[in-house]
């Protein structure tokens, strides 16, 4: 059990509660009417939030990338009701000490979070944090490190993840998050050709990865009409 500190947590990654199991619905509201004061307490939190635009941090447990509410079910419920995507939380992390893979993954993640200051990045396979940390370190090393990694996150990681999201890769790797696919592509190019070719658009990098893994996107220039046109233009040139 480790104190993971105060952090901003994506509400959709809060998947359960610790001691109210079976009592709450998916919006963290009581399924059965609890007592007369319940709706007043809920109303009070909503009013306070509307007035101050702020909720005190909730207490969460983190286990295998998912968050469970220890204290603050009503605040989470209010945040969902208000359509918020993120909430402040004080997080305690649980790691199975007998599982070496989990342990080393958690170490990589904590190192990544401490060195880069980025805590909102979630991977399904935590060994990928080491790859991301090395990439963030290599990016603009002259600057103040945390500032450099923040710009790596906003200028490199997020735009590339958006391109990955728009490709067919999330359909091919359903059990992976976008960040995991980013790591997968990066590691493939590192192993195969000493890193991603520079000065190349990331969409081309993705299509290279797709090709190398036998997942070629549809190519219009391979259609019959284009091939016929090509034959006319490039007569007498045989391709092996």
């Amino acid at each position, binding site marked *: 059990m480790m104190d993971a500190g105060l952090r901003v947590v994506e509400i959709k990654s809060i998947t359960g509660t610790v001691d109210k199991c079976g009592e709450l619905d998916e919006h963290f509201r009581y399924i059965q009417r609890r007592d007369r004061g319940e709706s007043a307490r809920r109303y009070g939190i909503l009013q306070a939030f509307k007035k101050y635009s702020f909720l005190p941090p909730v207490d969460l447990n983190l286990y295998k990338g998912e968050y469970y509410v220890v204290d603050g079910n009503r605040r989470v419920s209010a945040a969902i009701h208000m359509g918020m995507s993120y909430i402040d939380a004080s997080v305690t992390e649980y790691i199975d000490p007998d599982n070496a893979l989990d342990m080393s993954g958690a170490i990589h993640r904590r190192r990544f979070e401490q060195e880069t200051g980025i805590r909102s990045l979630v991977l399904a396979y935590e060994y990928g944090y080491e790859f991301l940390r090395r990439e963030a370190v290599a990016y603009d090393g002259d600057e103040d490190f945390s500032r450099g990694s923040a710009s790596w996150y906003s200028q490199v990681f997020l735009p590339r993840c958006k391109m990955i999201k728009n490709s067919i890769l999330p359909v091919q790797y359903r059990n992976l998050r976008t960040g995991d696919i980013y790591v997968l592509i990066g590691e493939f190019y590192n192993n*195969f*050709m*000493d890193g991603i*070719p*520079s*000065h*190349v*658009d990331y*969409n*081309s*990098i993705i*299509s*290279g990865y797709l*090709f*190398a893994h036998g997942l070629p996107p549809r*190519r219009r*220039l*391979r259609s019959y009409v*284009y091939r016929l*046109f*090509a034959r006319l*233009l*490039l007569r007498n*040139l*045989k*391709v*092996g």
Partner: protein
Amino acid sequence: MGKPLRRLHARIVLEKALVFEEHAYHYYHAILGLTTMSNSFDLLKKISGQKLRAIIMLKEMQRKGRVKNIEFSVDKRYGHDSLTSTDLDTLCEEWPNLKPDDSPDTILRYALQKEKCACLFYRKLIQRTRHTDIHEVFQNLLHEGEEHARDIEKELKTITA
């Protein structure tokens, strides 16, 4: 030729090169997995990596029309004519299907033949295009093909020695 037609022509020329490089990549990738080729693993990995890089560059060029600071790992000391020109038709037959009992020597000879074919192919393409950026890309691919051919010849010598 009008501008849109010229652009289409450029894309089709690049597509030809792309098909060629994709076949080459598939061939090298297939032989990379053969246990009989374990001694040549580093060379084959290097070549297939360079083939993949070429594919990415060609796709980029097709998409954008130009590539900024093209990176090809080629040794430009060697001239164009370091390989003997053989008839394109005899060199560029169908890509061979690998058989389980093919010896490393045979497999590398196929690869050498294909690299020589690549050189002739790019020379032909260079003659057929006036687009300077495409010219530069094909020149680089030609140099790369020559370098691969030399490396494979060297590897063949060590195998047969």
